[in-house]
């Protein structure tokens, strides 16, 4: 009996292990399928939209060439640079806002602190684009919607202006930096400003990278604000509404495969970034000093 116990346990383990691997493979296949579909369609030569097969008959790079063509009414390269500019400006502004607010609420104690934090909590509960109509008219009143370039500036402002409200993750991070470090600096005669710029900021690289990247990614995927502010000005579209336009009735017949090529181009940088920041991401959320 005793001799039989071991092998039977081993077979049981083997069977359950293989079952798990087969299950994972099936689920993994489901997760990969749409991505494979995007990649395959982006190389498809046959024009038009839906086909009665999935794997393309002829593969080609023409869709990518078409994507970067500068004629026609949909100019992807312009959209790409528009989005890049908006993202760069808004990510620097929002990172600045978020770090300032998070540091103030984490480290400084003053009369209005708790009140302001509660106000921020309440403001965060309104649907973001509820106020969009008013923002639109304020921007119009300020003359930001006169020219295309100004619209992009306005868009960057809209993305970054309210970002101070999203201080929670950064505040949680600052909370984990021991206060004794600050106090040692005060004894040496440092002002709070010195502590912020010379101690806290250098210690907070993971959260800074995290904040910069999340706010950099926002304009690439935001659809609502861009659509409302940019309106019909196709030349100044960002990538997200541009690609969405390609799937509309008047364009889908001609641009269907090009749309997928655009999706691949947009995804490559974010995949690379994501793999690169995964480490920062995990560190950034879980704190600076491990207990």
């Amino acid at each position, binding site marked *: 009996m005793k001799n039989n116990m071991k092998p039977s346990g081993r077979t049981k383990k083997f069977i359950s292990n293989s079952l798990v691997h087969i299950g994972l493979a099936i689920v993994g296949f489901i997760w990969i399928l749409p991505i494979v579909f995007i990649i395959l369609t982006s190389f498809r030569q046959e024009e038009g939209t839906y086909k009665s097969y999935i794997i393309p008959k002829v593969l080609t790079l023409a869709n990518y060439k078409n994507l970067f063509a500068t004629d026609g009414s949909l100019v992807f390269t312009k959209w790409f640079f528009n989005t890049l500019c908006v993202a760069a400006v808004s990510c620097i502004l929002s990172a600045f806002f978020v770090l300032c607010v998070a540091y*103030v609420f984490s480290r400084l104690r003053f009369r209005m602190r708790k009140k302001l934090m509660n106000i921020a909590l309440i403001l965060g*509960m309104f649907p973001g684009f509820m106020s969009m109509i008013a923002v639109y008219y304020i921007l119009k009143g300020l003359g930001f919607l006169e020219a295309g370039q100004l619209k992009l500036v306005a868009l960057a402002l809209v993305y970054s202006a309210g970002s101070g409200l999203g201080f929670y993750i950064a505040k949680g991070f600052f909370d984990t930096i021991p206060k004794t470090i600050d106090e040692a600096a005060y004894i040496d005669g440092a002002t709070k400003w010195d502590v912020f710029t010379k101690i806290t900021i250098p210690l907070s690289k993971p959260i800074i990278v995290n904040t910069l990247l999340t706010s950099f990614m926002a304009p690439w995927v935001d659809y609502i604000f861009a659509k409302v502010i940019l309106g019909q000005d196709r030349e100044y579209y960002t990538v997200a509404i541009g690609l969405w336009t390609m799937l509309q009735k008047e364009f889908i017949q001609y641009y269907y495969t090009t749309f997928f090529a655009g999706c691949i181009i947009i995804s490559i940088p974010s995949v690379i970034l994501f793999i690169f920041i995964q480490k920062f991401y995990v560190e950034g959320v879980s704190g600076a000093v491990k207990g």
Partner: protein
Amino acid sequence: MAGKKQTTSIKPVDPYGIDFGTAFISGNVITKLSAVILGLGNILCKQLIRGLIYLALECAYIIFMLSFGIGAIKNLITLGTKTQVEVFNEAKQIYEYTVGDNSMLCLLYGVIIIFVTLLFIGILTSSVKSAYHSQKLKEAGKPLPRFIDDLGSLRHEKLHNTLLFFPIIGVICFTIIPLVFIILIAFTNYDQKHQPPGNLFDWVGFDNFTSMFKLGGVLSNTFWPVLQWTFIWAIFSTFSCFILGMLLAIVINREGTRYKGFWRFIFVLSIAVPQFVSLLTMSTFFNASGPMNVMLKSLGIISAGTTIPFLTNPLLAKITIICVNIWIGVPFTMLSTTGILNNIPKDLYEAAKVDGANVIVTFFKITLPYMLFIMTPALITAFVGNINNFNVIFLLTGGGPQSIDYYYAGKTDLLVTWLYKLTVTNKEYNIGAVIGIIIFVILATLSLITYRHTGSYKDEEAFQ
């Protein structure tokens, strides 16, 4: 902890700790006069620059109000009286429009004036407090801070003012003023028929709210089903992602599984694809003539002539949306739970093993309670996020299939997407504003109940 708290308040007399009331009542005549002539106390105490800045701000406010503000407040109350009129111009033989009032701008300027006034009241109280502070210091025979000292304190004691200045300006201009504006719209009749500049709109009190809740009306016939679906969607999407993601993490983490990194990579890949890309792809994927139907046909599961209406049948569309959301959400949960799973003390499992517990019992008795304890705040945030999940619905079905029973809404519309359709496409701003306020009330109740109970809210300095 208590000891540390005391050390942070180094200054014995904190002038900005006193509130306006005490400063005004216990201050001398000059301090009291500083509420009328701003900066008087500071000027008399030889803090010239500080005092003059206060005085200049007051003058600016008075000039601004006289030239512009009073008219704007009058307009805020009436929302404009002159309608734009079509007049026939005999000389040019064309119709011309006289310039009428624009109710929308009246309301917007009115809101801005209110905020400017609030700002001025803030400056006024600060002037009195500053005067009181100088008075106290003078009585005690202590040196008064010069302007340079004031500037210096912005780097230390008053660093919060410096750091918060720009973020708060941004939030006020782009979040608070628009919000107040849009909340006020909920009490007007700013809809398709009352579009400025052609027409005026006016205050209507709570009419919009009553028509929203009144049973039998077309609005409430839309509102209740949409609200119901919003909640069903939020519950299903939150819990399906949480449970399946956790199971996936457990399966990948378990001892016998090999190539852990490879499996994780496969699932993480779908996070790295921008969400709108995967959503737009999915909407073509499940189209009537899209790849999913093609695949089912070529596998012989459905016959050649038929198609499954994944996104056009109301019930099926709802199921498809939840499934797609699982595809999007599970990898996120998997990533975030992997770390926490590793943190569960191993001896708990060993003890359970010794007691003869099998895998299922350990999951329900150890893993699940532990995960629920840690993940509750994250779950609530996810729930709130899902109530407001605009992208999934809008990019996948656009709220469709359309329904004639509903007022500008489709069968899969959430409150937020309905709000979008009402305001952006159909210009029914008053109804949209009402929905926005309702969403806020729902979210506020949810968050208040839960945030108050989380440890991190009660004891935020636990780890400092």
